[in-house]
């Protein structure tokens, strides 16, 4: 009985944290995309709001346009930096809007407002290594037509968006066949090692200098303007009326040269983004703010809490659902095959895709990550519960029946204890997978050890990557150790001795 009560408590404990908070006191939530410039502008906006007394938090590097836009629409965030070209060609694509007023009208129908531009135009550009370009005599995009053997590596976003590669290819009639999608930061690495020759850039990228690249002239004007602006929710004014005014102070304050400088500071000189933002504001507004950069131990501790939170809630939920499902599958042959089939199919969805599927349903942050982790954790537990019960020798079942135990008592007193080793092994497998997979949660803003890994990839900083990767590996090992200990508690000594003898 005691054991059962303990188990029950263990299962519900994580959910006690999930009591929703009062929304009227919500701070302004600033979002940003998964690249340094956007993160910097997000930092500047957040810090400026705070300097003026408006509580604000920055949920940084949440993902691409799709993630940020839907987070804004869902109210998971209140404001984020966007680019005019992206708004017209992607967010409001197909509406043929060019005039600023028309765009504003279309946005306000969705409850979204747009600030005036910050002052820099971060348009798409096409870049090559300077040496290669000089050797081949390429200075403008139309020159690329003469070299069909060149390898192109584009960000996935650029590959598929209407104003990206499809538009460029049509516009210039480019013949290249070897065109692949990859991460922006990896593309720099690739072009440096010459595994690709041509990549998409943002015109304000810091790496242009660092990797000795040139941007090719857009001689046929394929790319539209990408002026940086803030998009924000209308209803922010209900909570923090002064926030809208404060954000207006930033209009026109960041010309292109300044943005490139800040990008170089953050990406190449490794100055913390908060620091870069604070220096900018100090110069522009004369307000000095102490940049509080948390100690590494505190940061790791916080990430550990976030990571554990994701793992514990999703895993507990999976245990609670999977064991009954596994039992049902073992007891009812027909339903059983169905259950195993469905749970098996979920497992075949690529992890990243599963995360992205969750965004329209659950927004960004913890909930979608937990749901994806939960779904991913089901199969090992269901399957092991099923096989654990199925492989109980028939004379055990027969004896339990002959004693006069009711079906439920039989399950509780005989079948589950006999299957306990197998069930626990399933939970262990799920837990270890879960700890690793939870690092991906950072892609949709759920924090955890994935956060430093993501930032580390973005800033090409191995130290940061290890700050996430090492604790994640340690946690996986500890989880394994925890379940080895748990076996002593949950699996009868009689079964353990029996297993040792074999």
């Amino acid at each position, binding site marked *: 009985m005691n054991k059962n009560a303990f188990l029950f408590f263990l299962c519900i404990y994580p959910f006690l944290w999930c009591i929703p908070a009062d929304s009227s006191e919500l701070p302004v939530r600033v979002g940003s995309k998964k690249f340094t410039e956007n993160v910097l502008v997000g930092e500047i906006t957040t810090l400026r709001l705070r300097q003026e007394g408006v509580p604000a938090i920055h949920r940084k590097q949440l993902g691409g346009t799709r993630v940020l836009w839907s987070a804004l629409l869902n109210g998971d965030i209140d404001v984020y930096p966007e680019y005019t070209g992206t708004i017209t060609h992607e967010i409001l694509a197909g509406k043929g809007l060019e005039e600023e007023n028309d765009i504003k009208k279309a946005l306000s129908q969705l409850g979204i407002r747009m600030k005036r531009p910050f002052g820099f135009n971060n348009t798409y550009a096409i870049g090559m290594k300077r040496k290669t370009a000089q050797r081949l005599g390429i200075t403008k995009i139309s020159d690329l037509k003469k070299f069909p053997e060149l390898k192109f590596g584009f960000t996935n976003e650029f590959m598929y968006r209407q104003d990206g590669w499809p538009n460029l290819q049509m516009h210039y009639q480019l013949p290249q066949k070897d065109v692949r999608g990859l991460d922006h930061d990896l593309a720099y690495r690739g072009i440096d090692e010459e595994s690709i020759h041509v990549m998409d850039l943002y015109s304000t990228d810091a790496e242009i200098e660092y990797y000795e690249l040139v941007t090719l002239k857009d001689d046929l004007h394929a790319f539209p303007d990408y002026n940086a602006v803030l998009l924000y929710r209308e209803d922010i004014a209900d909570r923090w009326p002064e926030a809208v005014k404060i954000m207006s102070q930033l209009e026109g304050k960041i010309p292109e040269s300044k943005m490139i400088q800040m990008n170089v500071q953050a990406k190449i000189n490794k100055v913390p983004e908060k620091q870069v933002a604070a220096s900018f504001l100090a110069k522009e507004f004369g307000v000095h703010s102490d940049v509080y950069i948390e100690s590494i131990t505190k940061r790791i501790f916080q990430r550990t809490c976030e990571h554990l939170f994701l793992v514990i809630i999703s895993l507990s939920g999976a245990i609670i659902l999977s064991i009954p499902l596994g039992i049902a599958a073992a007891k009812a042959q027909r339903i059983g095959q169905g259950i195993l089939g469905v749970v098996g199919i979920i497992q075949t969805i690529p992890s990243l895709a599963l995360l992205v599927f969750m965004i329209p349903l659950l927004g960004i942050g913890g909930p979608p990550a937990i749901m994806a982790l939960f779904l991913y954790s089901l199969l090992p537990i269901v399957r092991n519960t099923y096989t654990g019960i199925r492989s109980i020798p028939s004379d055990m079942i027969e004896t339990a029946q002959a004693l*006069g135990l009711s079906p439920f008592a039989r399950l509780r007193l005989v079948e589950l204890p006999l299957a306990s080793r197998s069930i626990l092994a399933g939970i262990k497998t799920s837990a270890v997978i879960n700890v690793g997979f939870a690092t991906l949660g950072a892609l949709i803003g759920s924090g955890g050890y994935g956060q430093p890994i993501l930032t580390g990839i973005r800033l090409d900083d191995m130290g940061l990557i290890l700050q996430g990767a090492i604790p994640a590996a340690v946690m996986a090992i500890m989880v394994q150790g925890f379940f080895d200990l748990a076996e002593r508690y949950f699996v009868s000594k*009689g079964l353990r001795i029996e297993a040792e003898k074999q």
Partner: protein
Amino acid sequence: MSQQDYHVPDHIFKLSGVSKAYGETHAVRSVNLSIPKGLTTVLIGPSGCGKSTTLRLMIGLLQPDEGTVLFEGNEITRANILQLRQHMGYVIQNGGLFPHLTARENITLMAHYLGWEKSRINLRLQELVDLSQFPNDGLERYPVQLSGGQQQRVALMRALMLDPNVLLLDEPLGALDPIIRSGLQNILREIFYKLRKSVVLVTHDIGEAGFLGDQIVLMRGGNIVQKGTIKELIHSPAGPFVTNFINSQNSLQEVLQEEYE
């Protein structure tokens, strides 16, 4: 309530025209059989003749295709089966002990489940330990830590724990080596004699049947060939099969010698 509750039958089980088939295999063919109260009935016959199936029909693990099985005058139904089984003790060949429970936990499982008081459980357990001559320190061991003979005694104690009206033993000594086996046969005979329980015992060993059984039921291919005492089977066999079956086993000689001593 049915009429049958008003008269007390003198037999514990009554099988009338009972048949059971597994697909094409006819394991039991319209068997009529009464198990008398307070006596030991032995089911014997070559492997596959339907002994275990008959036992499983009695304890309601199987439902007959045809015919009826009465336990103390009541037909076994889905509704009363769990209740009735608490009045039957069942032991299978390898004991069927639960490996995750100690000997003590195995024996007292049902008593705990039914909410017996601790003192009552301990009292009953001590009685059984004495009766089966089981070492007291073996109670805290797990089945895997017990010898084959000890395991069978634990299984027997578990079957006896609730003081059932009938014991159903399916080759309880079948897996033991001969010396331990004969020791346990003595213990079994003593227990049957002391408790005056109704017992149905399955064996394929004619010596064991003669040693333990008051009534012997010889089966073949799902049918009952002959019912009677060991002497009746020897001296007035129902046919050559009976004599052949008896003569094919030499363990009987010892039993007969013992009988005449």
